[in-house]
Structure formats: C-alpha cells, structure tokens
C-alpha cells in the first residue's frame, strides 16, 4: 500500500492518475470551502473535547479511578465495578424508583397536556383561550429550586397552608416531605403543574393546523362534536403524539435531577433515590468515580436502546419516526 501511494504522488501511472485528479479535485473543493472548514473547526473541536472524549471516558467504569492519578495511575479492575454495582441492592432500588417514577409520569403527565390541549381547543371564547394558554406556561419558567421552595411552603408541617387547613379541620399534621409515600404524588403534581402548559403548546399547534374541510365533511356526515374529536382531531395529531411518546420512552430511565434531589429528605430516600441522584452521590460525594461511571454507562446505553426501540415501534405502528 505504502509504495503504491508513493508512486501515485511521484510519477502518476494510469491508475493513480485518476486518484491524482480526484485528489486535486478534493483539494480544490477543500480550498474553495476553506471558510466552511474554518467555521466547523471550533464545532468539531468542541464536540471532540466535551462530547466524544467523555464518551470515551466511560471506560472509567473499568478502572478504580482516582481523580488525582488519572488513567495512568488508576488501577484497571475489569468488570469489578459492574459486578459490585449489579450485586448491590441500592443500585436496583434506584433503578426501580426511576422506572416507577417515570411510569407514573408516562401515565399521568404524558396524556395530561394532550387532554388540556383538546379542551382548550374546544373553548369557543377566543380571548379566554389565549389567556389560559399564556398563564399555563408560566410555571415552566421557574427553576426546580423555586418550585420545591413553593412545595416546602405549602406542605410545611408548621406553617404550610395544607397542614394549617388540616389543623383547623381537627386533623393531625403530616410532614409530607418526610413521609416516603407522599414523595411520588408530590413529584407528579409538581411536574404536572410545571409542564402541562408547556407540553400542550406543541399539541395546540398541531391542532390549529388540522384542515377545516375535514371538520366540514364530518359535520355533513352528521358527526357530533365528540365524534369529530374522536375521528378527526385525535387522528390528525397522532403523529405528534407518537413523536412525543418516543421522546418520553427514550427518557424512561432518566429522571430530572434537580427536582428529585431537592425533594429528597433522609427519610424518603427509599423511594426518592433515582439513578441520576445515585450517580451524583456515588461520584461527586463519595468520589467513587468508577462505580458512578458504570451507572452513567448503563444510563446512556439503555436510553439509547429505548429511543431506537420506540422509534422502530412507532415506525411500524404509526408510520412516524424521528431518526
């Protein structure tokens, strides 16, 4: 191979001549596009350093990684981290909590914005529709810290309005944030409050682009408003619903860190410890980077597989796909 190349560059026998001309064309194209290459240079550098090197560093999961020693000084331990983690019940507990929390979100927080959008779409009063819509996405712009702060206010056992209400009705106070059984409802309600308006935007946009003639045809056929909703409206936004579903399924094992972490109390950890917070604590608090990276790797691989699976599924069922 090497010699062939050298002759190609040197003399130019018939066969290499073509590649020489090709080469020349490539070089001319590159020179012509030098501004473009200059443009993508920082992009490529960034992606390599901050996206692809971290992917490579997922191999930390095979090391007993010490931050001060780096790769060279850290001990290669093979699958020890994997064995340790997968035989550790706290990992499975975190995974189970993650899945349960996300299933709840999928069951409640996923359909809610669709229903909200449908109801809003049926609202005949234009100004009212606009007003409610505008108000509905305000919570989305609050940070998790602020939302959790509000939750603390409402649920506080000494000054929270819920508990004061309970007291005035003669009931005992409940320390909602300390009791494990309330964590999931609180999380779901908070997510619902924050996300329903924002998530409904995309459905509302899809609804507004439904062809009016379809409704006219349905009306001529004597379809009631409910029937029109079932047979015209919902099928027309099914594609959008499927795409959102793919995204939702793709993030089935990722729970937003901020809200969960901030709602965690020592006593509700049995239900509130999810994979992201578990990774954070393993890595950042206990400096067990090897173990934490195993969780990261697990997370990345499973999320990727889930997206691809959901994509294939949706391609078959609804003929919609994202990749």
């Amino acid at each position, binding site marked *: 191979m090497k010699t062939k190349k050298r002759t190609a560059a040197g003399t130019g026998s018939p066969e290499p001549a073509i590649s020489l001309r090709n080469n020349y064309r490539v070089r001319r194209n590159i020179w012509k596009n030098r501004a473009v290459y200059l443009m993508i240079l920082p*992009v490529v550098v960034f992606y390599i350093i901050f996206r692809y090197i971290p992917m490579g560093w997922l191999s930390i999961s095979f090391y007993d990684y010490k931050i001060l020693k780096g790769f060279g000084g850290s001990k290669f331990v093979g699958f020890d981290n994997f064995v340790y983690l997968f035989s550790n019940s706290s990992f499975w507990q975190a995974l189970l909590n993650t899945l349960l929390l996300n299933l709840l979100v999928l069951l409640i927080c996923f359909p809610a914005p669709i229903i909200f959008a449908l109801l809003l779409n049926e609202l005949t009063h234009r100004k009212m529709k606009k007003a409610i819509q505008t108000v509905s996405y305000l919570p989305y712009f609050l940070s998790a810290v602020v939302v959790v702060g509000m939750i603390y206010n409402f649920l506080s056992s000494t000054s929270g309005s819920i508990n004061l209400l309970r007291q005035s009705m003669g009931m005992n106070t409940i320390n909602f944030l300390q009791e494990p059984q309330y964590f999931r409802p609180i999380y779901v309600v908070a997510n619902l409050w924050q996300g329903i308006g924002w998530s409904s935007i995309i459905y509302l946009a899809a609804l507004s682009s439904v062809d009016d003639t379809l409704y006219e045809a349905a009306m001529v056929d004597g379809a009631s408003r409910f029937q029109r909703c079932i047979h015209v409206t919902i099928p027309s936004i099914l594609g959008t619903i499927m795409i959102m579903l793919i995204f939702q399924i793709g993030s089935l094992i990722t729970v937003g860190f901020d809200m969960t972490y901030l709602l965690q109390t020592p006593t509700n950890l049995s239900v509130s410890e999810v994979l992201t917070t578990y990774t954070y604590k393993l890595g950042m608090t206990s400096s067990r980077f090897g173990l934490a990276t195993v969780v990261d790797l697990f997370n990345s691989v499973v999320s990727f597989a889930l997206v691809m699976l959901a994509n294939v599924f949706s391609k078959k069922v609804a003929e919609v796909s994202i990749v």
Partner: protein
Amino acid sequence: MVKYMKPSKGEKVFDIFNMIFLTILGILFLYPIINVVAVSFSSSSAVLQNQVTVFPVQFTTTAYSKIINNASIYHSYENTIFVALIGCVLTLLATCIAAYPLAFCEFYGKKVYSMMIIIALWFSGGMIPTYLVMNSLHLTNSLWALILNTLFSSYYIIILRSFFTGSIPMSLIESMRMDGANDFTILFRLVIPLSKAALATIALWIIVLHWNEFLPALMYLQDRKKYTLQMILQEIILQNQGALSGASDSARINAEGQMVIPTQIQNAVIVVSIIPMIVIYPFLSKYFVKGIMLGAVKG
C-alpha cells in the same frame, strides 16, 4: 371552526363545564406564584396565621430590606447574569456557525460532521465522565464551566438548521456567492439578519436555561463566591439541607430567618429570583410558540 349545526344541549353543557374547568386550572397555574409574592410582602404575624392568600396582609417590605444588602445574594445575582448573558451570546454565535454549514454548504466530510452532531443528541458521556474531563482541563470551579457545558447543543443546532433551510432560499445564498462573498459574510450579512425570530427564540431558551440550571452549578462550582443564584436560593429555601459555611452572609440570614420569619425571607428571595423571568415573559410567550414549532419540524 365552521359552525353549520346548532349546538345540542349536551354540547352547551360541555361548553360551560369546560369553561369552568379551564378557568380553575388557569387559577391553579397562577395561584402559587401570586401567593409567594403576597407572602413576601406580608407581616410575619399574618404569615404565621395563614391569612395571606392573594393579596399581602399588613403590607411590609422588611423581608426585602433584609436580603437587599446581602452580599452573597448580590454576588450570585451577578454570577448568574454573567453566565446567562455571556452564555447566551456565545451559544448563539456557536449555534449559527455550526448550523450554517449543515444548511447551505456542500463540502467533503459533511456526512461525518452531521453524524457527529446527531450522535451526540442520542448518546452522551454522562455526568461523571463529563465532569472529569472538565476537571482535567481545570475548568471546574469557574463560571466558564457552566457556559462551556452547553455552548454547543445538538438540539439547537438541528432546530436552527431546519429554520435556515426552511426560511432562506438557497438561490439567495448562491447569488451572494456569485458576487464573491465568502461564507462568513453570507452568514453575518444575510443569514443572521434574516433569522432574527429563530435566534430570539433560542436566545430566550438559553437565558432561561442558564438562569434556572442547578445541577451543573452544584457539580462545577465549589467556591461560594462563584455560586449562582439557584445555589444560594437552594441554601436559603431548603435550610435544613443546605450546607452552610459558618461566617458567610447567607448563614447570618438563615440564622435570623430561622428565629423570626423564614417563610417571608424565602418568599422574598424567590420573588427576587423570578423577577427577570417575569420581565422577559412577554417576549418569551411571543417567540417560543413559534420556536417550539421549529423544533417540531425535524424533531
């Protein structure tokens, strides 16, 4: 919608119930925010007796006077503004130069380039490796870590690419090339001025993202002086969990707050932290509906 048929009785009933239901929902969206504002302006006795709902009771600004001179809140505010503004400008620029070649240029390696961006959308190195890479570059404990963390985002790049190809005709680009303009000139003189709406959307997204981000701040910032607003907020709001370093201003506030009126101070801090979001909200609601549709075009 077209109305041919008279609404039936059932439909009328539905309309009324729907209206009532959605109005209640609308109130529920707003109430917690209004309540926070009201509590922050109310006297401590009114707060403790749970009298405050929509309007302040026994109006007072003591909570605000306590936090307004607080050095750590002031610093964190500055830090967050720095990250949000510098981050916004740089990310916009970065997104433009990354999306432009994808939209308008044919060059060797374009396939690889676009794969590079798309793969990062679906697969990531995860929390810990990213942190360790940042750490090995000595970028931790710096506000730049927060900016670099999201400097290029595949999601924004793909959205902007769709917008570029959808709204700017290729012939326009070609004619400028004929006139001898290079790609930088085309990008800055033609494409960016024509994409103001999309760029405004992305800019607002980035500002909101940086304003509210918590995990990156928690991971990358160790020095209290570098803490962003959300970090300080977290300490003040969730005192029982916040690790308080002894002599700091925030600790003093917390100590005082715990004795007298923690709820008021917490609410006042929340209000102070969301004011910028409320201020840009009219712009947000104007632009992002369009923006989210840009995203929907190509997913």
